[in-house]
């Protein structure tokens, strides 16, 4: 009898520790975040729970009148709209180029393009801040050599966003390229041979065979990249602190600033929930589009 009971609980002993940690640090926090987004929780409330006031929807209402928040939404939209297609196009192009050979040169190139993806974002952001330096940086030095006036990479509000996007694309290409490469290597060669017999050239083959075979990996990369850009944080945090003039502030950074620099936990939690809902909606739209494509 007892051994029967033991047998039944064995599976749970395997999954329990991981599930407990995930529950405490991922699932329960969602509920807490939702709850405190309806309160004015701040540093005093942290020490004395009786000080926490229920404020209803006022955090959310206030958010949409807060220019800094609206600006951060706008910036995040720019990051997503520019960054996501750019990452997909660049990594797919490089994957197709690398896939055209099998010798050690092409293998080495795989490593070269993947390297930025594994390195630390903070270190990389520090390096790029130096590269972007208006007078000492490498980029303006090179531009000066061909007679182009210095660019305020991180100091010009019109350029700063783009500078961060360039860095983030550089960093994201490697990982997505590997995903595309794995998919490319699974395309049956007979398809290409048949197309060639039909007289299709390289470009036509790419359009009609390669790209359709990559549908699923393109979808996968789109969803994961989309989610990543919605949470764009490390680069603006290290390089610009959201400036100049809030032009690079993202929603994720806005949440951090309000939560941990101003200790407005309730307000920040409301901001994070707006972001969460946006991510869920964008992901659902992607899945719907994917289904529709499949149906056709």
């Amino acid at each position, binding site marked *: 009898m007892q051994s029967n009971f033991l047998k039944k609980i064995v599976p749970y002993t395997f999954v329990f520790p991981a599930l407990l940690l995930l529950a405490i640090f991922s699932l329960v926090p969602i509920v807490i975040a939702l709850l405190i987004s309806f309160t004015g929780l701040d540093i005093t409330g942290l020490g004395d729970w009786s000080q926490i006031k229920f404020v209803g929807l006022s955090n959310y209402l206030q958010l949409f009148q807060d220019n800094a928040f609206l600006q951060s939404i706008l910036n995040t939209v720019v990051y997503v709209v520019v960054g996501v297609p750019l990452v997909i196009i660049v990594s797919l192009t490089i994957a197709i180029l690398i896939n055209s050979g099998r010798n050690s040169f092409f293998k080495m190139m795989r490593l070269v393009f993947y390297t930025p993806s*594994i390195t630390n974002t903070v270190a990389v952001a*520090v390096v790029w801040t130096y590269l972007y330096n208006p007078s000492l940086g490498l980029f303006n030095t090179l531009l000066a050599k061909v007679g182009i006036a210095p660019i305020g990479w991180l100091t010009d509000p019109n350029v700063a966003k783009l500078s961060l996007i360039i860095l983030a694309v550089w960093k994201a290409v490697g990982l997505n390229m590997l995903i595309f490469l794995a998919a490319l290597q699974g395309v049956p060669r007979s398809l290409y041979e048949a197309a060639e017999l039909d007289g299709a050239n390289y470009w036509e083959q790419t359009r009609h065979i390669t790209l359709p075979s990559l549908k699923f990996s393109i979808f996968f990369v789109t969803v994961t990249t989309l989610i990543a850009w919605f949470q764009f944080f490390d680069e603006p945090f290290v390089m610009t602190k959201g400036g100049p003039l809030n032009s690079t502030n993202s929603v994720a950074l806005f949440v951090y600033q309000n939560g941990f620099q101003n200790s407005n936990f309730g307000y920040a939690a409301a901001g994070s929930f707006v972001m969460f809902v946006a991510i869920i909606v964008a992901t659902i739209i992607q899945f719907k589009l994917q289904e529709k494509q499949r149906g056709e």
Partner: protein
Amino acid sequence: MDTGMQDISKISKVLIGVVLTILGFLMILPFLWMFLSSFKTSTEISLSQSFWPQHWTIDNYKNLFTNGSFDIYVKNTLIITAASFIGLFLNAMAGYGFAKFDFKGRKFLFMAVLATMMIPGQVTMIPVYLILNQMQLTNTLLGIILPGLVGAFGIFLFRQFMSNIPDSIVEAARLDGAGEWYIFFHLILPISKPVLAVQGILTFIGGWNAFLWPLIIANDQKYYTLSVGLQLLQGQHTSDYGLQMAGSSFMVIPIIIIFIIFQKYILQGFNIQMDK
């Protein structure tokens, strides 16, 4: 080889090679610049922007430890990285549980695990801080380690791999009277070496690069990790680029070396991931 390649002419192959070489050089240019600048004196950095250092110096690296507190950051980072291997083990256990046992609530629990992948760090950041604060774990190493210890993605990959282990092997061991934990340690883990290798390397890289939790949980410099310390260094020595580049090189170069040594496993890992 009958998958994956289009036939292209020799000339286009060479052309592609040239394009890739140029792009590849641009990809690693920031790392070259970082590494070379870390050996320049601060006067040289402010006066000339030549690529190659004119007077090689390792003072920047020395300063990381004398002016900065990189010795403390390295220690903390190594402790956190070591602890994250406990997390790797817990992921493997959970992956095995979901792969090879049929129990009540299995489907639901696994879906819950996958759902956590969707949750952005910024949403859980504040509540996790409050929870750790309540447990009096803010500003401790344990508090930095716990939130990221297990991960849905790791559990998912272990489950994928272990589902492919034939049931008959496990059954045979049970008939021989082996206990469930004995089977896990002496049968399942050795078979799972490929996925353990990939996950082990990724765990190491993840631990070495840890930034968000240490940033939030550690208020005291004595608990800072390399990432947080480097970010502090940048704020304190805004224009000392030689020092900053030395700090960055110190973080980046070991990871690149590890990656080059183990690249076979990491790249194979991608095929495992994409198969399913």
